[in-house]
């Protein structure tokens, strides 16, 4: 609505397409086996058979980056889906039923919101075990409260509107009113939130991996590649630079695309970052 050609959105779209394509390709083909150890080529610099060098076990960095893209994308998508479903249901129920249920649900929700998301995820993760699905559940639970807040707010604001009243007057049962008339109106704000969340999840997953609690090695993710590069920071710079750059570029893509989605779907929210 502001710029005639959203160049930013275009760049964002390109970056995300590249991420998705890489992830898709990595599912069927990588230059080397990302897990294959080669003790004779440990910490090889970029070039030759290994375009981006090898890590401390002699594994191909490029192949691992590609496989990492797949893992990261799948984890991020699953987490966002989980958070939206769990938080959305909670918010719908709380906002629609109001009263006592609402108060209890929101008290728990606010207690959860009183923690920085990554700390909450850290706690859940230790309980569920540090593996791919543990991360999805932990990060999903950490972000679900924000979704619940937004959905509940939307529900509260529209439940008194005429079309909702009308649905009741016709004699539709409450759950039909809820799913047919209230829920669809929450899609726009949730979509905006979800786009932003995708970036957060990507970042949090790498941060957790960095702390040693992410997707367990040897399966590569950008976060655990970055974490294990730390001892070789000085002697093998490429080990840390490559995955970091991948995370940064993906996040850039998501942020650019997210700004655009927000402008399109919810002009009112455009003002709030």
């Amino acid at each position, binding site marked *: 609505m*502001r710029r005639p050609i959203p160049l930013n959105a275009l760049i964002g779209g390109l970056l995300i397409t590249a991420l998705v394509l890489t992830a898709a390709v990595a599912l069927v083909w990588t230059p080397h086996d990302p897990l294959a150890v080669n003790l004779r080529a440990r910490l090889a610099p970029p070039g030759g058979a290994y375009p981006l060098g090898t890590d401390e076990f002699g594994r191909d960095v490029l192949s691992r980056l590609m496989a990492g893209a797949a893992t990261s994308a799948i984890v991020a998508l699953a987490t966002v889906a989980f958070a939206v479903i769990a938080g959305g249901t909670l918010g719908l129920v709380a906002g629609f039923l109001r009263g006592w249920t609402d108060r209890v649900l929101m*008290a728990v929700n606010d*207690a959860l919101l009183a923690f920085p998301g990554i*700390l909450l995820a850290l*706690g859940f993760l230790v309980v569920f075990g540090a593996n791919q699905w543990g991360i999805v559940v932990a990060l999903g639970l950490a972000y679900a409260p924000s979704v619940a807040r937004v959905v509940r707010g939307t529900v509260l604001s529209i439940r008194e509107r005429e079309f909702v009243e009308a649905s009741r007057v016709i004699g539709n049962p409450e759950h039909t009113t809820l799913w047919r008339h209230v829920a669809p109106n929450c899609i726009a704000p949730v979509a905006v939130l979800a786009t932003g969340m995708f970036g957060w999840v990507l*970042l949090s997953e790498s941060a957790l991996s960095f702390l040693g609690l992410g997707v367990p090695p040897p399966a590569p993710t950008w976060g655990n590649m*970055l974490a294990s590069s730390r001892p070789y920071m000085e002697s093998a710079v490429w080990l840390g630079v490559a995955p970091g750059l991948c995370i940064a570029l993906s996040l*850039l893509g998501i942020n650019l695309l997210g700004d655009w989605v927000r402008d399109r779907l919810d002009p009112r929210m455009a003002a709030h970052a």
Partner: protein
Amino acid sequence: MVVPTLLLVGATVFVLMRLVPGDPVLVMLGDTAGEAEIADLRAALGLDRPLPVQFALWLARVARGDLGASITNGQSVLGLILERFQVSTAIVLVAVAAAALIAVPLGLLAAWRQGSAADLAIVAGATVLVSVPSFWLGLLLLLLFGLKLGWLPVVGFVPFSENFAAALSFLILPIVTLIMIEIGVLTRMSRAAAIEVLRLDYVTHARAKGLPESRVLLRHVLPNAFAPTWTLIGLTLGNLLGGIAVLETVFTLPGLGRLLVDGIFARDYPVVQGCLLFIALIYVVVNLIVDLMYPLFDPRVTAE
């Protein structure tokens, strides 16, 4: 509202920690310990009592302001928290303040000249900064200033009380890292807020009255646009105090986040419970202060 929230937080953390597999006594004694020794230490620490009793005892002590002693090293948890809190606060406060000083004017400028080359550059720069993972940026800065140029110490920390200048030298890189990330966040926020304010009627009125543009910006736009940014700063402060663990790991700083993460790894129940309770309290208090100060920045709130 504060007390029930904290109580809920305390209970949740207590239960979560006990659900986690692993035993602090095993971690502490290692593989040479015999059954008798393990049982002795568990009894000495009170870990052999039923969970509800342990929780009640802990709660009773917390009510008196005593967070207990660390299982790992026997130090007072409150003492540990306060000591580590200083380090984290120093970093977070300085970084967020400095970032706000740079980001708010930038955001205002971008909003004022919306669509111009300057705006595009500022938005692009801010988006790039937001997209860089803090720990990666930290590692890169460490590599450049610590290892390649050798200007700053790579890792470690000295308490302020021992050597102020040396302590400062350890904090520069983490602070710079955080400033860069926060500039990205705050610039985007204040730009968006300023755009909204610039569209409002009273700005048009002020301009129509013939007020000079600088006066319009400083007297009318800045205070109003700053209000949502101020809320975000409050949220950021609360978030960062706990969430800075990753940055503290990169720079090996003995901050609160590190204390918590190490506590989780060692299953040091009192430390973890104490830290999370403390973080939740800080979060609540910071947001309360932010709410109380809100009218100072947003005339519309006072009007209501």
